């Protein structure tokens, strides 16, 4: 089967990969680039486990074809920590016990960071509705909401 050549920027690095026309960005990230931190929970855009940023927009990578990534800038969970320093959201998720199995965590962290970038001081409802596209089956969301708001406070310098 003929494969397509794609060039993109992933977590700041220039990358190239080959993909089948029908492959999703999620499959390319996981299977071609071996960035398995982005998860597949449904493949239909309903669970948010595959959330990544594409040119600054929050997208479900299972709903985007890999060939569409040509020339795009993609940010995944693997690029969230800077060196040894965890992003405040990452640290707060651990401190607040806001994760259990952790399979939804990468997607939720990416989505939460996108929220805080546009709204540095979200109230509880804003956090809950923003994260409504990310399913978590373990936590009941309570501690996730706490962690996001606490991280927002820290980032604001409060």
């Amino acid at each position: 089967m003929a494969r397509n050549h794609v060039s993109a920027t992933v977590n700041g690095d220039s990358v190239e990969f080959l993909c089948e026309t029908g492959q999703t960005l999620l499959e390319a990230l996981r299977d071609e680039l071996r960035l398995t931190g982005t998860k597949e929970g449904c493949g239909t855009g309903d669970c948010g486990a595959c959330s990544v940023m594409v040119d600054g927009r929050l997208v479900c990578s299972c709903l985007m074809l890999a060939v569409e990534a040509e020339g795009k800038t993609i940010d995944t969970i693997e690029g969230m920590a800077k060196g040894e320093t965890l992003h405040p959201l990452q640290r707060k998720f651990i401190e607040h016990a806001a994760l259990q199995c952790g399979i939804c965590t990468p997607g939720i962290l990416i989505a939460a960071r996108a929220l805080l970038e546009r709204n540095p001081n979200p109230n509880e409802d804003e956090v809950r509705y923003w994260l409504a596209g990310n399913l978590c089956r373990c936590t009941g969301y309570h501690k996730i909401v706490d962690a996001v708001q606490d991280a927002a406070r820290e980032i604001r310098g409060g």
Partner: protein
Amino acid sequence: MSDMLKYEERELKVVGTRPLRPDGVDKVTGRARYGADYNLPGQLIGKVLRSPHAHARIKAIDISAALALPGVKAVVTRDDFAEMPNEFASAGELTVNYRAVTRNMMAREKVLYDGHPVAAVAAVSESVARAALALIKVEYEVLPHVIDVVEAMRPDAPLLHEEQYTEGVKPKPDRPSNIAKRLEYGHGDVAAGFAKADVIVEREFNTKPVHQGYIEPQACLASYSEDGQAELWTCTQGHFVFRAQCAKLLQMDVSKIRVTPTEIGGGFGGKNNVYNEPLAIALSRKSNRPVKMVMTREEVFRATGPTPGANVKVKIGCTLGGRITAAQAEVNFQAGAFPGSPVNQASMCAFTRYDLANVRVVGHDVTVNRPKVAAYRAPGAPIVVFGVESVIDELSKKLGLDPIEFRLKNAAKEGTQTYYGPKLSRIGYIETLEAARAHPHYSAPLGPNQGRGVATGFWFNIGNETTCALNLQPDGTLTLNLGTIDVAGGSRASLSMMVAEELGIALERVRPIIGDTSTLGFNFVTAGSRSTFASGMAGVIAARQMIETLRARVAKIREVPLEAVAWKNGRAEPVDARVVKFEPMSLAEIAAMAGRTGGPIAGHAEINAQGAGPGFGAHIVDVEVDRETGAVKILRYTVVQDVGKAIHPAYVEGQMQGGAAQGIGWALNEEYVYGADGVLQNPGFLDYRVPVASDLPRIDTVIVEVPNPNHPYGVRGCGEVPIISPMAAIANAIENAVGVRLYAQPFSPPHVLEALGGTAKR
């Protein structure tokens, strides 16, 4: 060591605190590796062809075209697997029969549900594997099907298993039936009890199957080598049980299969049993290549075990003073395509919260054309408790009694004789009810169309086979090798905490790992809320054993009697320096000398943990009902639960919140929807709606700690109890809000609107 350790009250330094979880950083950075994250050089991709029919006889399977497709390396069907006789084994809370396990893994004579596997292929890519599936020709003779439990119990219902005669009925019935088993529990005389009652309420309830809904679909990677050894990586709640099942199904020696558990992305009972694992090994054996198999979400819904749907009849009588005189239930559970629903556990849980003289529960395990059910967090209990706690609520209203007061008047306590066997040991049901009654939530004001409900739950909790190895490393740090899977509740943290407490050292010095099946003896599945109880017991035994060795080494090094050496503050110190004095030795100092003083130092435990302590919970929920749309909003939720001892309170709260959230989803939205053709219509998260963040309020938690006398730290277990009560509590709250009681789950807008006398607008 056969002696179980008993509870001792003592001062605690680590247990009861809230340290960071050892798997935390890996999980927030994407580094944690789950089932689908493992790959091997040269691996093939395996996919499964599934039945499009609810019930059909397989007349022929032609794989020739698929095999001829370039890139296809192996195809397996029923012909590649041995026939299995009836042979029962335990796996999680449910028992499996290998005759059924092999048929569920790969259909033999018939397909029994939409999604039942009929063939599997391994190919060089997923797209080739999918193309190959389309080339397999299966000739079916479609048969009438039955998916409803009441219909399936009728004598003229389509029959799934021609050789299935109802067990538990004497004499043996003269014709086969979909009722695989009838069971009965009880004591006293219910007829006499009802005769003494002033008030009797009898109601019938129906529930739909719901799925565990773990976000990680089943995924595995198998590699079978030419010398007959197999390696398997899989997301599982019990790698030892998976190994046993694969060995049996593939007729291999158990020791020739090595299973490495990956990080698990949720299980909740749904990952207690094999699905693709034996197929992946079989495909690898046939192709001589590693084979990776990852389910789609649709496959997870269609072919892995949901909980049963059910029909439950409850009758309770009591005096005007509020004392229950008799309780009776009939519990009819869908087993799915093969027998083995949790009707047994549900029947035992039905009334066990109450101290009752006259009880009778009859249960039926009924095969229907749906996927074989699997355990789901306190398997069966939420279903039967929905019925019983709804009737309890109705009775308390009829009597004009506060619902918690009514429960307290009948509450089970230490010494209560259960109707299924044992007397209850020290339990905390009364303490839990009293904590719920005292909570500000219970007396907070309510607005119009708002209502409050309460409901309670009981779960046994279990122990079972458990092993661990604690190794002292040359620098004085420790590796705790555990064989009981951390299914995400944080048992790696809680078990390390108990070991650190025993040794008197900082938690950071204990590194927990989950060992593969070749590194430890058999461990049971993480089920029954057993992990922190049983694995904790093993960890404490291993630590105490290590302390004995450490003391002996120090006695040797310092040339003092063993009795003069105490283990205190994380080091060896004189018991009494006035009697025998010596320079204390730290773990690191002893570890550095281990080679010269007798060899490496370790502790280990191989136990069958006994004495699990039952757990009880009480939930309070406020709802608001929209009379126009039928939508039910959860305004406030409080979970009160006796966990014995919260080793890591934040993770205990997480269990209580997560269990409640699953129960809320079960109550309000979740259901399997089948068409008249017996095909599942909602196999995806769009149409099977689990709760999202904006559906839920904060979930308050109150941890009650009545220590389990049969655990060194008093642990009971906490993971399952919190899912039991939400359905009943929410039904009671809806009744309290709008005066209408719901007898069928889910309480979704159309159903609520119908109950309110309106109709859904389309």
